[in-house]
């Protein structure tokens, strides 16, 4: 098995101001599927092609933003191994009992240097992707809206950027895949735990713990354009796109959920291997790095977080 340690982003728990509006957005408009609810009023969702029971948890709240993001590790041994390594790095950990989130095993929980909460877990109930595992069809029928394929990554704004990146690379074994630098100061870091262009990204910022966006994969550029149609048809607040990123090469569009959390749907980004070189964008070229066609930074894209 080539995958060890941290396998992938497992879920993101987002705070929402109105659960019904949030469900219309994530399910009817983006195509996620509701799989459970709990007695705290949280609603569990997954994208159609995900096997595990949920990848998004919507938490009713009086504020917006990200409660936590969780990564799935390959084995129970990995869980205790990373628990020690996180502690050795100097970050406190706690254990969240199995079942605190329906269907999720025990979690190791900690606040990374940039002020965001992350959890690790090894087990989650698997309910399948609505396609048989024998003679599987290419896609299931009846998926709504943008037909998001999977929860892919988050981009976060936090303080103590350098320490955050050191933590993710040294304690959690993620690789730096791509970066934006201004001289010898890193402004943005795109980190990968496997073959994807990135699984999480951080931007240097002064406030801790902010969410820039939670991102979902689509199948093609044509699907990104179709998502843009849906954004207009359903009067969803658009941020930027459709366009292409220089960073990761992805085709993308950004918009906001009904609580002001930014979402991205994207397609056709790049990939990497453990021996791939780090890709670097210089600050002078940051417009092109972010929006490859216009080469112009957008104020709302840079300056709005939840």
């Amino acid at each position, binding site marked *: 098995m080539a995958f060890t340690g941290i396998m992938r982003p497992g879920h993101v728990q987002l705070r929402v*101001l109105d659960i019904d509006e949030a469900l219309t957005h994530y399910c009817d408009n983006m195509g996620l599927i509701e799989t459970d609810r709990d007695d705290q009023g949280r609603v569990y969702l997954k994208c159609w092609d995900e096997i595990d029971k949920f990848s998004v948890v919507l938490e009713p709240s009086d*504020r917006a933003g990200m409660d936590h993001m969780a990564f799935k590790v390959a084995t129970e041994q990995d869980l205790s191994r990373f628990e020690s390594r996180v502690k050795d790095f100097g970050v406190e950990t706690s254990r969240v009992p199995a079942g605190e989130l329906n269907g999720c095993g025990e979690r190791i929980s900690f606040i990374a240097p940039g002020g965001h909460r992350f959890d690790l877990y090894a087990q989650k109930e698997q309910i399948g992707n609505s396609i048989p595992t024998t003679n599987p069809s290419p896609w299931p029928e009846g998926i709504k809206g943008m037909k998001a394929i999977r929860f892919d990554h988050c981009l976060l*704004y936090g303080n103590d950027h350098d320490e955050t990146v050191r933590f993710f690379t040294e304690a959690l074994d993620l690789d730096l895949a791509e970066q934006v630098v201004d001289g010898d100061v890193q402004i943005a870091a795109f980190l990968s735990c496997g073959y994807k262009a990135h699984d999480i990204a951080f931007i240097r*910022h*002064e406030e801790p713990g902010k969410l820039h966006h939670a991102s979902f994969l689509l199948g093609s550029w044509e699907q990104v354009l179709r998502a843009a149609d849906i954004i207009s048809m359903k009067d969803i607040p658009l941020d930027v796109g459709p366009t292409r990123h220089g960073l990761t090469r992805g085709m993308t569009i950004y918009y906001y959920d009904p609580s*002001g959390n930014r979402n991205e749907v994207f397609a056709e980004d790049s990939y990497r291997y453990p021996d791939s070189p780090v890709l670097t964008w210089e*600050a002078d070229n940051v417009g092109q790095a972010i929006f490859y066609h216009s080469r112009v930074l957008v104020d709302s894209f*840079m300056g*709005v977080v939840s």
Partner: protein
Amino acid sequence: MSYKVTIADTGEEFHCRELQHLLAGMQQLGKKGIPVGCRSGGCGVCKVRITSGEYQVKKMSRDHVSEQEEENGIALACRVSPRSDIQLQVLGHLKKIVTPKK
């Protein structure tokens, strides 16, 4: 029903319908003055102080407007719909990316 909204800071005026929020009214004819972000009450960049006028307000993130502020006429413009002419002051701003000192 449509009402006049005046941004005290700049003197900019625009019209906003009862069923619209203030940012939508402002943007409709390309007017500017209040920073525009998520348009969903979550990011806080459109924070304003309403100095006169009647309005209705939808749920706003408590990270940006406390209950006490809400009682004192502070609101997120993207969650405010007018019920009379409105005068306001801009409080919010887009966040600055930390660009290192050279």
